[in-house]
């Protein structure tokens, strides 16, 4: 177990007393406080951080959530919201002396309006369940995180999650229209509205990606899109990763925005191939999967154009999916890349930096160099179209010091992302994991502004304490230098 962000800086409460107060709000079986009952909540998808909460509650109505929040507010008790717990940054990690609020029972789709193309759903509804529920209407919900069979829409809003189709259709923030939130004081507030905009500040944007720090999301109205007439996928192999990187830029420069544009490097290809036998070219240094969608004729034209671009960019092989089966096969390896890497290494650590596309060759080269330096292999799987990298650092936690080494390596990758003008997290969030790198990405005045925003919603600091935004004290301890747009304070020092 790595260090947790938790410190005992809130007043201690008596468990029995708390449970009896909660029993006035919820049925007994919705209040968990025995160790074995709390175990499922001790971590999210980043399992190197673990912590049991004092108590977990599973409300099933907004009224109950409001009462729980009011109780916590009056007792000064920390509260951590949790969707499906698939987060990869320790965002839903419980607070030792606090309440874990599970939204699991909020799993109803409240309303589907096919005329306006929206669905109003409870926060615990799974991402994929929305698309499944509107499939018969020819509609779907566009953001599609790889975890979509499990993750909740509330968690998606809290993380501003993306997926392989975000290049063309945007992130969660672009695909929601209204949310309902409960503040720490127990007030129910509607943010957004029935139209395409709403009066006042854009709190919908502010809430999206706020990692459970500002309020609890209790309802989400998502926008639905009509399914495209035709979807076509291409797969290209390259004997040089740099050429694959250039091909990405060439496609975009040609004025084509693919629905998805994904890259995998040699190690990731091999792992995926061994796992799902997708038929990837085994000797390739990199592959690109490009998906085009839209009107029949448009897709036909673009497919020809992309095929030419890939060939002219040095692809050693370009395949155009003949049918739906082959298209699904192209994706099979990509979609199973994480578990596939999980098979070839006892542990892996998934990073999530985003960089300007033009820096791709430099960053790939630097990561390869660092991989040698740290003696840890890296498999690369990424949303190449929008520059969002997912380097997977392979390590073995049972070997003393390897986890720490992997974490340090990961931290260096993120700092490199900042240095080239990118960011430490494209879609997984800061959570508990990337607090130190926040000190590098932001100046203390900027972090203070974030804290002021937090205080505007939650002046007692009870919601998900210690996550997402580091204290200035922590940054001082970490001793990080803020670097911005490559303007390194000491250019002669430490270069990758």
């Amino acid at each position, binding site marked *: 177990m790595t260090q947790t962000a938790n410190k005992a800086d809130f007043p201690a409460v008596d468990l029995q007393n708390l449970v009896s107060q909660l029993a006035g709000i919820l049925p007994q079986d919705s209040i968990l406080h025995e160790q074995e009952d709390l175990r499922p909540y001790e971590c999210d998808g980043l399992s190197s951080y673990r912590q049991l909460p004092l108590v977990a509650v599973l409300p099933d109505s907004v009224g109950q959530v409001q009462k729980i929040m009011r109780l916590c507010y009056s007792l000064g008790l920390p509260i951590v919201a949790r969707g499906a717990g698939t987060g990869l940054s320790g965002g839903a990690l419980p607070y030792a002396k606090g309440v874990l609020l599970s939204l699991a029972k909020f799993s109803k789709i409240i309303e589907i*309006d096919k*005329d*306006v*193309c929206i669905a109003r759903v409870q926060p615990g509804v799974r991402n994929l369940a929305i698309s499944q529920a509107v499939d018969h*209407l*020819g509609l779907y919900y566009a953001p599609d995180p790889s975890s979509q069979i499990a993750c909740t829409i509330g968690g998606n809003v809290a993380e501003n999650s*993306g997926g392989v189709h*975000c290049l063309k259709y*945007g992130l969660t*923030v*672009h695909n929601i229209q209204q949310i309902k939130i409960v*503040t720490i004081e127990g*007030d129910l507030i509607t943010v957004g*509205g*029935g*139209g*395409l905009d*709403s*009066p*006042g*500040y*854009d*709190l919908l*944007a*502010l809430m999206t*990606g*706020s990692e459970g720090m500002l309020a609890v999301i209790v309802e989400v109205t998502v926008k639905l899109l*009509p*399914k495209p*007439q035709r979807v076509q996928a291409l797969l290209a192999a390259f004997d040089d990763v740099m050429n694959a990187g250039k091909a990405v830029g060439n496609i975009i*420069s040609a*004025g084509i925005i693919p629905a998805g544009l994904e890259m995998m490097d040699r190690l990731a290809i091999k792992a995926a191939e061994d796992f799902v036998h997708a038929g990837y070219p085994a000797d390739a240094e990199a592959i690109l999967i490009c998906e085009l969608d*839209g*009107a029949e*004729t*448009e897709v036909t034209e673009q497919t020809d154009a992309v095929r030419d671009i890939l060939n002219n960019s040095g692809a050693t092989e370009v395949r155009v999916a003949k049918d739906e089966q082959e298209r699904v096969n192209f994706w099979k390896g990509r979609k199973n890349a994480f578990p596939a890497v999980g098979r070839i290494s006892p542990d892996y650590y998934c990073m999530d930096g985003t*960089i*300007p596309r*033009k820096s791709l060759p430099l960053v790939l080269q630097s990561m390869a160099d660092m991989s040698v330096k740290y003696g840890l292999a890296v498999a690369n799987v990424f949303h190449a179209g*929008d*520059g969002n990298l997912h380097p997977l650092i392979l390590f073995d936690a049972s070997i003393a010091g390897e986890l720490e080494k992997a974490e340090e390596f990961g931290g260096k990758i993120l700092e490199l992302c900042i240095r080239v*003008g*990118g*960011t430490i997290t*494209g879609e997984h969030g*800061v959570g508990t994991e*990337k607090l130190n*790198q*926040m000190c590098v*990405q*932001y100046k203390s*005045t*900027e972090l203070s*502004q*974030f804290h*002021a925003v937090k*205080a*505007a*919603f939650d002046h007692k600091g009870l919601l998900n304490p210690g996550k997402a935004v580091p204290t200035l004290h922590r940054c001082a301890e970490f001793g990080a230098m803020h670097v*911005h747009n490559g303007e390194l304070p000491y250019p002669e020092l430490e270069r990758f």
Partner: protein
Amino acid sequence: MGLKNDISEQLQNRVRLAIEKGEALRIIAGGSKGFYGRDVSGSELSVTQHQGIISYQPSELVITARAGTPIKVIENALSENAQMLAFEPPAFGERATIGGTVACNFSGPRRAYSGAARDYVLGTKIINGKAEILTFGGEVMKNVAGYDVSRLMAGAMGTLGVLLEISLKIVPKPEAETTVMLNLGSEEALLKLQQWASQPLPVSGSCFYQNTLYVRLSGAEKAVREMRQFIGGELLKNADYFWHSVKEQRHDFFKNDQALWRISLASNTPILSLDGNTLYEWGGALRWLKTDLPAQPLRKFSESINGHATLFRTSGKRDEIFQPLPKHLLQLHRKLKQAFDPHGIFNIGRMYQEY
């Protein structure tokens, strides 16, 4: 480009001085949007001189410019590379700047089909109310490090800080574009728009006025041609001129002294039984109303359908322009204003009287 157009330090010093003197500031750039919002007093803080495109690499699909850069300069630069701002902002005047446009979150006909200004904001540099220069977001497509302060700036009308720089995602221009007209009654037109919205059609603009439904199609040459046949109707000549006149409010509909209301609501809301003349946009989700009706019933009605009404232009008093906010929401707004502008110096009262 170049440093001589970077006046951020002067602006910062001016904000510092205002804090010392307890003086309110009225932020202004091109002045093209002075008609919009509540009246504001205070000393003028002009960002007009803070100009220039800082970075633009077409293959990155991002442009970063200083807030005082005229929209026209940006649009011209993009156009040279067959790119554009996807939200098709109305300028409301030659001198309109990118800062003012983002501050108002103004978006044109394409909004219903490809998103608003706020959807394309990737990063901002601002001066907050403590005279600190802060950078949020960046030039990359995906960034969830820290709260999304950049998008919060879009539509905040300068009440939370002075915009210094803005990074926007840009898109390629469509290969082909065409506009057709259909002769229809209003109910029929709304129904058509709704049906099209739930089908994968390359619609990029819609407007209904006086029994004519105007539909713009954008995309690949062939796809547009096919869609034209599917939709039917008559081809509109001078289509660019038409959409420009709607976007910039130069169309005949906008030409009289009556107050202009902007009602934003769900696209399937039936025809409003309100006195006045209506022009529809955004697939029915935006209704411009020319009317002499008082604010009260309009606001009440809008609220009842989960929409909102803005008094967009008026020759009368400009005391209540935006839909009043419910109590708890207003309270949050006040606290956020306090978080960014603790001394209360920026554009006080531009949106709501309280802050």
